[in-house]
C-alpha cells in the first residue's frame, strides 16, 4: 500500500503543549554526550544570557515526536509504521530551546512522493513558544518501504 497522496498539504491540529523541564534537558544532554556547561549548569547558562539551561539542538525531536505520532495514526494516511525509515532530519532555529519553555508543535505534510513502490513523506513541524513566537522548525523525511 502506498502513502495517500492527498496527505500533501494537510495541516494537523496543534499537539498539547510541551513544558521543557530542566532535568529533562540535563538528562537529554548527557545522553547525546553534550559537555557544554550551558546545557548542564543553570548558573553557566545564566552567565551566557539565558534564563535556564539550553537544550542541545536535537532536543527539538522530543517536542516534534507527538506530531509524527499524529501522522502515523492518521486513518487515511496509509503509512505502515513497521515500514518507516528515517531518511533526513533538519532543525532550523529562531532561538534555542531553554528549560521553562512551553512549546506547541503543529504538523504540516509538505510533500508526498510515491516512486518505485516506495513513498517519501516530508513532515514539517513548526514549534512556537507560549507567546506564539517561532522557536524551531523540525523537518523529517520519512521513507516508507513498499511491499517486497
Amino acid at each position, binding site marked *: 500500500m502506498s502513502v495517500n497522496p492527498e496527505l500533501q498539504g494537510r495541516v494537523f491540529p496543534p499537539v498539547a503543549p510541551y513544558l521543557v523541564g530542566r532535568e529533562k534537558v540535563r538528562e537529554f544532554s548527557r545522553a*547525546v554526550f553534550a559537555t557544554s556547561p550551558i546545557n548542564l549548569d543553570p548558573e553557566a547558562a545564566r552567565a551566557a544570557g539565558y534564563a535556564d539551561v*539550553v537544550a542541545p539542538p536535537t532536543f527539538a525531536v522530543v517536542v516534534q515526536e507527538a506530531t509524527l505520532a499524529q501522522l502515523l495514526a492518521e486513518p487515511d494516511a496509509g503509512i505502515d509504521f513497521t515500514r518507516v525509515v528515517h531518511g533526513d532530519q533538519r532543525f532550523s532555529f529562531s532561538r534555542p530551546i531553554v528549560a521553562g519553555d512551553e512549546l506547541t508543535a503543529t504538523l504540516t505534510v509538505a510533500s508526498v512522493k510515491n516512486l518505485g513502490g516506495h513513498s517519501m513523506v516530508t513532515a514539517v513541524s513548526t514549534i512556537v513558544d507560549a507567546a506564539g513566537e517561532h522557536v524551531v522548525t523540525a523537518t523529517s523525511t520519512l521513507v516508507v518501504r513498499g511491499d517486497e
Partner: protein
Amino acid sequence: MTDIATPATPRLADLTVGEIVAEGTFPLTRDSLVHYAGASGDFNPIHYRDDVAVSVGLPGVLAHGMLTMGFAVQPVVDWAGDPGRIVDYQVRFTRPVLVPADDVAVVTVVAKVGALDADAGVARIDLTVSSGEVTVLGKAQARVRLA
C-alpha cells in the same frame, strides 16, 4: 536572544573554507542506546533487542539515527562555545551504526568549514561522521552564528 561572545569564541573572519575546526570520538555501547531511549522517549526495540532487530531483517541492534545526529554536532557546539549558536542543523541517515551487545562501536566526527556567509554572520560547518571506515551520515551540516 543572547550574543555574549567570550574571548574564546571563534570569529568568522578568522576562518578558512576547508579548515578542520573540531573533531570528536564517541564510543557507543548498548548502555548508550538505552540511555538515549529513556532520555528521548524513543523506545523502538530495534535499538536494544537483538531478537527484534533480526526479526525485521536487520543485521543486529543499531543506534538511533537521532542519537548519532545528536552527538555528531557536539564537537561543533564545544568549538562555538554555546549551543545557542547552532541556528540550523541537518543530516541524511545513510548507513546504520551497529552496536554489538558485548563491544563498543566507535563513531568519529570531523568538522570542517564548508562555507562562510559574512553578511548573515553564519559559518556552515560540514561534518564527516564515520563508524568503522564508512560514513554513516550524509549532507551533515551545522550552521553556526558567529560574530
